[in-house]
């Protein structure tokens, strides 16, 4: 599903690489936590998967494709198979819940009839039925993140990337989001999620990959956030 082979990423005008000789394989159907302090390279890792950045050295394979050989015009097709969720939700403030999810389908040319059918379905999966016409500013943070997850999942992607999805949410709300991501994983989507949140990681007991200064320092199945606690 994802394979990093001694990947180094050095941003322009930086002296320290954000990721250094990182190697990692993530299998189909896994749920993986990416943990580590701020600046350890978690977001960089996820951007490399999305081909938003290219590695300085090493190779990245995603969904069986060598991203270094993927030509620019094929990137959209790759991204259609990957759902993405971020800490800041990234919703369109002047569109309703329904329209925000529908937007993701409109812009990849899906027919209207298809959109009318699948958007209510996915809103039910994330528990937002009845709130289709609300605008993002009429929703709680947790609900906004559910809209973002619905948008990421509406195409039933093979892979879901979540960069600190609970970073802006209180612990109680976070639990609900984690349950949702877990459900999506059980529906067959591979989930890779970066987080700071030790409590969540410790509760879920899934695979944990820890980054420190751009190095993979720990890779543990059914792991916890850190040895220190």
């Amino acid at each position: 599903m994802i394979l990093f082979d001694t990947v180094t990423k050095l941003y322009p005008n930086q002296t320290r690489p954000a990721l250094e000789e990182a190697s990692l394989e993530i299998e189909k159907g896994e749920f993986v936590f990416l943990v580590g302090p701020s600046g350890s390279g978690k977001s960089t890792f996820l951007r490399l998967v999305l081909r938003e950045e290219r590695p300085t050295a090493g190779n990245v394979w995603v969904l069986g494709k060598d991203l270094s050989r993927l030509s620019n015009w094929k990137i959209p097709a790759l991204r259609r198979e990957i759902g993405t969720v971020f800490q800041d939700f990234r919703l369109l403030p002047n569109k309703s819940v329904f329209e925000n999810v529908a937007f993701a389908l409109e812009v990849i040319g899906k027919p209207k009839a298809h959109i009318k059918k699948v958007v209510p379905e996915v809103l039910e999966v994330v528990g937002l039925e009845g709130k289709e016409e609300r605008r993002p500013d009429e929703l709680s943070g947790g609900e906004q993140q559910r809209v973002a997850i619905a948008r990421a999942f509406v195409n039933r992607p093979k892979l879901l990337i979540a960069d600190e999805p609970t970073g802006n949410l209180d612990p109680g709300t976070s639990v609900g989001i984690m349950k949702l991501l877990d459900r999506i994983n059980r529906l067959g989507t591979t989930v890779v999620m970066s987080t700071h949140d030790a409590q969540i990681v410790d509760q879920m007991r899934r695979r944990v990959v820890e980054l420190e200064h751009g190095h993979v320092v720990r890779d543990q199945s059914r792991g916890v956030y850190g040895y220190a606690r």
Partner: protein
Amino acid sequence: MRAQFVASEVGSGLRRNLTMTLAVIITVAVSLTLFGVSLLVRAQVDTMKDFWYDKVEVSIFLCAKGSDTPSCAGGAVTAAQRDQIEADLESLRPLVQDIYYESQEEAFARFQEQFANSPIVDSVNESALPESFRVKLADPTQYDVVASAFSGRPGIEQVNDQRQVLDKFFRLLGGLQAIALIIAVVMLVVTVLLVVNTMRVAAFSRRRETGIMRLVGASNLYIQLPFLLEAAVSAGIGAILAVGGLILTKSVVIDQILAPSFQFTAFVGWDAVVGIAPILILVGIGLSGLAAFLTLRKYLRV
């Protein structure tokens, strides 16, 4: 690709950027109008050249009684001199195509007709006007052959080439055309810069939407098309206004103002306008679309 979605994006984009859109429309309209007018002036010069080069003559003025050039020191031209000149002109055929002799009476009649409404007519008498040979050349550019053969000869006051007078006039028109063209090109450069800036602002103000579009895998074409169409639509409106300006120039400035006052010459026809209009629309939309495309490539990268 869903046409309705793209159309609504273009519409909302144009409205959101209304001042910029108007600025683009106006600069496109002004620069293309100037460009069109400069093309029209060139077509006018060509029309006039066609019209006049057929009619221009070399005039050989013969000495009249009071002529004071050195070649007229012997007084008015004699019959022998006149016959010799005519014979020499005949010998220059076929370069010399037509020879027409204008007597003093004819010259006076033409003078009276030309200045019919002017008091000058009464102060000039027949003997002061020179008689002349009007010569039409097969190739009007070979004027020098005639000039070197006849000017300065006793009995000839002056050899005069109408074409040289016309060429001065055409050069003046050509200069005006060049100035209009330079201003038009400068304005087009301004237009391109404005489109670049408009696209930059538009891309920035919609970075949320385009960012999401990239993430969910919208194709580049889908992301850029609303912007490109926006640039093309505003340039298209500007170009249509410019075509309107050109039509106005032809129907009002040329047909109603210039043509009635200068009936002796030909003016460009509507075919020139019909030929220029598509050029304006293509240049307008093409330039603006290209500027937009190159800007977006930089600001809406995958």
